[in-house]
Structure formats: structure tokens, C-alpha cells
């Protein structure tokens, strides 16, 4: 039995089946709960993809919302254009392709951001990624085809429970396999000590860029899901605060621990719903949480997954 639990491919299958079954019951589901659960799925994809960049490879990216926005805009523009020329039934088939194209363009953006960033370390990298995130936002604000400051609205509501969780499961699977493979050991080597890794014959450049590209791809998918869930997007949605919210999930979950990050994503998406009474203090609580975590428990709140040495220098 434990052998079954240890095989990632089997687990992926179980997750997909569970997603499909739950999805079948989704139509009976209360709209509100369904909406929040989809939000959770999207958050999981974002957190796991950022975790690959921040946690596993140790590069600090503050511009994740930028990749998300690329995926959101590209997929939305595709479905909006398709909506004009297709009937409703044909349109449903466009959803997945639109998401994928969005993800791929986001991956391209990841490549463009990743390449110049490789020479920079730590704090500089953080600021540069923040800068790229802002530049992407400013660009969308000025492109009329993307709606400019008004953004896009009337996006067909095609994000369902089933697809969100299937994609989430795939994201977790891909990132997890990547990290646990021999290739993936390279990520951790780069994280732990770049100079040592390169003297061992690994090319840190390649790993860092790969992390960015894959992380950006999934962020783009999450963005596409978001756009077709909320039906309207504009440049203000994907600002630094959005990037930071995902960063908080990764930090809370313990950088590098996939399980912890998933749990953190769930909790941080649900919490605001329960805490509506104290909504005005939410950001203050987040900020205090971050400071507290960094000082008292930098390895994050959760200890799931593979045991790892805490970050040393």
C-alpha cells in the first residue's frame, strides 16, 4: 500500500479522478463556495510555480504577477476574439488552447526576464523582477488591444472546478518531479551554493532560466484561469501587492517545501473569507506575520515534505 502512495504518477491519477468527481457535483454547489474553491486552485498553481523559482532555486522573484498577467491577457484576448466568430459550443473547445497559449507566452516572458537576471544576485534580482513586473503592467496599460487602463471585460466564464484542479495537480506533479529528478538536483545545488555547483560542472545559468520559464508558464496558466473566472481584468489587478501575496504563501509554507506551500496557499485564500470582519487589518496582519516568520521561523510554518537544511550562507 505504501508503495502506491509513494508513486507520484499514481497520485497524480488519483488527484485527477478526484477533481473530475468533485467537478461533476460542482453544478449543485453553492456559487460562493465554488468560487472560493476555484480561487484556492489558482492560488495553489501560483504558489507552487513561484516556489520553483524562489524556494527550490533560491532566486527571489517579486514580479510573479507580471507572468500571471501575461497569461491572463493573452488567453482572454484569444477567447474574446473567438467569441465573436464562434458559437457557444465551439467556444468551449477554445478554453484549454487559450490557456496553453497564455502559458506559453508567459513562459516566453519568463525567458526574457530570466536571461538578464542571471547575473544578479539576491537583492538586486528581487528589485529587477519587481521592475519587470511593473514594466509589464505599464505596457498592458498602454496597449489598446488589451483594453488599456480599462482592461478586458466580458471574458467568457469558462473556468470550472474540474479543470482548475486538474491543472493544479499537474503543476504540483511537474514541479515535484522536476525537483526530485537527477536534473532537479541541479536546482537545489544552484540554490545551496552556486559557485560550488558550477565548479562541479553544472551550468547554474541553465537551471535558473529553466526555473523562471517553467514557473512563468504555470503562472500564465493561473492567470488564464483567473481571467475566465472573474470575467474582467485590468492592469491594476496584477500589481506588486499580488506578487507579494504569492510570496507570502511561499514563505509561510517554507521555501522549497511543496506540501507546505500548498497548505499555505489554501489557508491564505480561505482566511480573508473568514476574516471579513477584520478585513481592514488584513494587510497589517500579513506584514506582522512576515516579520515574525523571518525573525523567529524562517523555514516556514509547515514541515511537510522532504527534510531540508535551513538556508545557511
Amino acid at each position, binding site marked *: 500500500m505504501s508503495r502506491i502512495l509513494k508513486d507520484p504518477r499514481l497520485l497524480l491519477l488519483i488527484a485527477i479522478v478526484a477533481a473530475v468527481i468533485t467537478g461533476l457535483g460542482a453544478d*449543485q454547489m453553492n456559487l*460562493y463556495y465554488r468560487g472560493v474553491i476555484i480561487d484556492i486552485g489558482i492560488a495553489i498553481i501560483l504558489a507552487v510555480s513561484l516556489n520553483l523559482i524562489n524556494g527550490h532555486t533560491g532566486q527571489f522573484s517579486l514580479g510573479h504577477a507580471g507572468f500571471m498577467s501575461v497569461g491572463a491577457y493573452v488567453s482572454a484576448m484569444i477567447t474574446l476574439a473567438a467569441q465573436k466568430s464562434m458559437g457557444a459550443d465551439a467556444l468551449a473547445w477554445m478554453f484549454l488552447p487559450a490557456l496553453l497559449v497564455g502559458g506559453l507566452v508567459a513562459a516566453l516572458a519568463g525567458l526574457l526576464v530570466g536571461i538578464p537576471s542571471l547575473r544578479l544576485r539576491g537583492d538586486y534580482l528581487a528589485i529587477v523582477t519587481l521592475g519587470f513586473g511593473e514594466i509589464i503592467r505599464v505596457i498592458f496599460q498602454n496597449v489598446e488591444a488589451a483594453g488599456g487602463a480599462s482592461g478586458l471585460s466580458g471574458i467568457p466564464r469558462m473556468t470550472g472546478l474540474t479543470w482548475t*484542479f486538474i491543472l493544479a495537480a499537474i503543476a504540483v506533479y511537474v514541479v515535484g518531479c522536476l525537483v526530485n529528478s537527477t536534473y532537479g538536483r541541479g536546482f537545489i545545488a544552484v540554490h545551496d551554493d552556486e559557485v560550488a555547483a558550477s565548479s562541479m560542472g553544472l551550468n547554474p545559468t541553465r537551471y535558473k532560466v529553466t526555473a523562471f520559464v517553467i514557473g512563468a508558464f504555470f503562472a500564465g496558466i493561473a492567470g488564464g484561469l*483567473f481571467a475566465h473566472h*472573474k470575467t*474582467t481584468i485590468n492592469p*491594476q*489587478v496584477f500589481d506588486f501587492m499580488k506578487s507579494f501575496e504569492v510570496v507570502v504563501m511561499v514563505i509561510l509554507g517554507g521555501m522549497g517545501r*511543496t506540501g507546505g506551500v500548498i497548505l499555505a496557499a489554501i489557508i491564505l485564500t480561505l482566511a480573508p473569507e473568514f476574516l471579513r470582519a477584520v478585513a*481592514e487589518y488584513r494587510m497589517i496582519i500579513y506584514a506582522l506575520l512576515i516579520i515574525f516568520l523571518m525573525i523567529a521561523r524562517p523555514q516556514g510554518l509547515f514541515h511537510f515534505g522532504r527534510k531540508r537544511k535551513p538556508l545557511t550562507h
Partner: protein
Amino acid sequence: MKPESLLLATFASLFGILSLTGCKSGDGSTIKVGEFASLTGKEKTFGMSSHEGTELAFEEINKAGGVLGKQIELLTEDNQSKAGEPANIVNKLISRDGVVAILGEVASSRSLEAAPIAQEAKIPMISPASTNPKVTEVGDYIFRVCFIDPFQGTVMANFAINTLKVKKVAILTDAKSDYSKGLAKYFKEQFTKNSGVITSELDYNGSDKDFKAQLTTIKGAAPDAVFIPGYYTDVALIAIQAQEIGLSIPLFGGDGWESENLLQVAGKAIEGHYFSTHCSPEDTSLKMTSFVAAYKAKYNKTPDAMAALGYDSAYVLAEAIKRAGTTEGPKLRDAIAATKDFEGVTGKFSLNEKRDAVKSAAILQIKDGKFKFLETIAP
């Protein structure tokens, strides 16, 4: 990685089970009305204003006996000026709290997010102050009690031509605000149609502080006036800096200017300039004076346009419920759509077939540190 996917599957199923227990609450003794607004965050000032107006209105209505013999219960939720929140909130209000109608929002982008949900659920939604034409285009259950950007832009263009009598105007837009860009677009259309000339079009980013660069360029092209369709926070600084670089031509803008804060921050620099809005605080009609008095008594400050619109949206809904004799979606919708010659605080208006309010705009001028009524422009 092993336990993670399992975790995923477990949670997915858990929620599947949990959610089947969700149901509409409500014992029928009150009429539930939902409101979503930005009570915190960047647009807090507008959100709080419209909420206060709405709250005051329902308080008065309930004191007078309620509607259809029942009291109205206002369920307000804060969307923190964030995108992504209105969807969750409106879903919650409709499916979990069982409201019969939705009031909100001031910002068009957030109204656009919520509207499709209300439309699909066949729950009428009335926006107090969203001016983007697209909002009511979402569907026939979506209404608004304010005029739309094309109208306001046209009003200001006509004002420039007929009252200010200027032929050359520069436009300074807030690039981050779709309201500002929309207003600028319609102004330009109407102004140039009447052989006006736009000398320059420049942008700034909302909450920028330095506008000297743009103002200097504007000054260089020697226009007769500058159209600034932005929000009062930026307009105050623009006015001050315009004065500093010696730009002494008239400045005019839209309802985003309306706030006491504009007078406080800009002081003398804003003296003599103009803007359009929904109603004039100097209006001596009984409705306006009693509204202002009631608002001052409850909240200790003078109401602004958002508060007045929030107030009107609540009354429009209440009237419609009375006329329909029921809170059933389709019948209520029809009643709201039939709103004609409604005497609101923001003027007398009807809802047209596009479900937008047809009403006059008031042009105000700042004189002696106060907003003074100049003229009304009818549609």
C-alpha cells in the same frame, strides 16, 4: 512530494462534501439587500461615501415602515478596493445570504466584475456611480442611477465651447484610470466635432505628485483652457503647480473633482476653475436640503456626490419594490426599468432603455473657497 497530491485530492473532496450543505438562509421576515463597496483600500473615500448614503436611505425607509410591510436588511461587504473580491462577495450575497438585489459599485471595473454574476442569477443590480457604458451592457438586470461617460464628456465639451468660449484645449488624463480616459475620449470627440482644437494630450499616473513636466509642455502649446478629467487628489496638486509655472488659464474637469479635500489641499490655486457633477450642494430643493441635514446629523460631515448617488440608488430600489409588489427577480427588474421621473437628490431622472439614468449635469465653479453652482446642462 508524495503526501502533497494526496492532500490536494483530500481537500478537493472535502470541500465537495462541505459545499453540498450550503443553502440559502432567510426566514422571510426582512427583505435582504446586498451591497458591495470599497470600504477600505485605495478607493475608500468614494466607497465609504456611497455606503453612507445608502445606509442613511434604508434607515429612513425602515423608520417610515419599510417596504411591503417588511424592514429592509442591508448586508454590506467590503471588497477592499481589490479586483477579484467583488466576484466572491456578490456570489456570497446572492447564493448564501439570499439577497433580492445588489447595490454597488462606484468603480466601473468592480461593477463589471460583479454584473455578470447578478445577471446570471437574475438578481437586479443598481450601481450608484459607475460611469463606464459597458456596465449596463452586461445585461438587462443591471442598472445605474448616474449618467455615463459619453454624456459627461459631451457636456464638458459643450461647456467649453458655449460657456468658456474656448477654441484650443489641452487634455491631461490619468493614464491609470479608465474613467479618466473614457471622459477624455468623449470630450475630444465632441469638442473636435464642433471645430475645437486639441493642442496637446498628456498623461500622468494617478497619485503622481509632480506634474510640472506635463504642465510646462501644455503651457508651451498655448491653449485657452485645460481639461483635466481626473480625481481630486491629483487635480489639487495640478492646480497648485499650474499656478507655480505661471499657467493661468481656466482648468475644468468632471465629477472626480468633487470633494472637500480638493478645496483643502489646493486652496487658492483652484479658485475660479470648473467641473461637472451630478447635483449641486446649493440646490435649494426640499429633497436636497433634508438629505444634507440628515447626512450631517448622522455622519458629521457634508455629503458629496457619491453619498447622494448611494442614497438615490437605495430609494430607486425601494420604490421599485413597492411598485412591483414583490421581490421576485424578473418582476422587480421590470419595475426598476420602469422608473420614470424619479425625484432624487441628484435631480429628476428616468431610466432609459439602456438602463442608464437620463438626467442633467450641474456645472460648478470654485468661488471664495466653495463650490458654487454655475449652470445646469440637460441631456
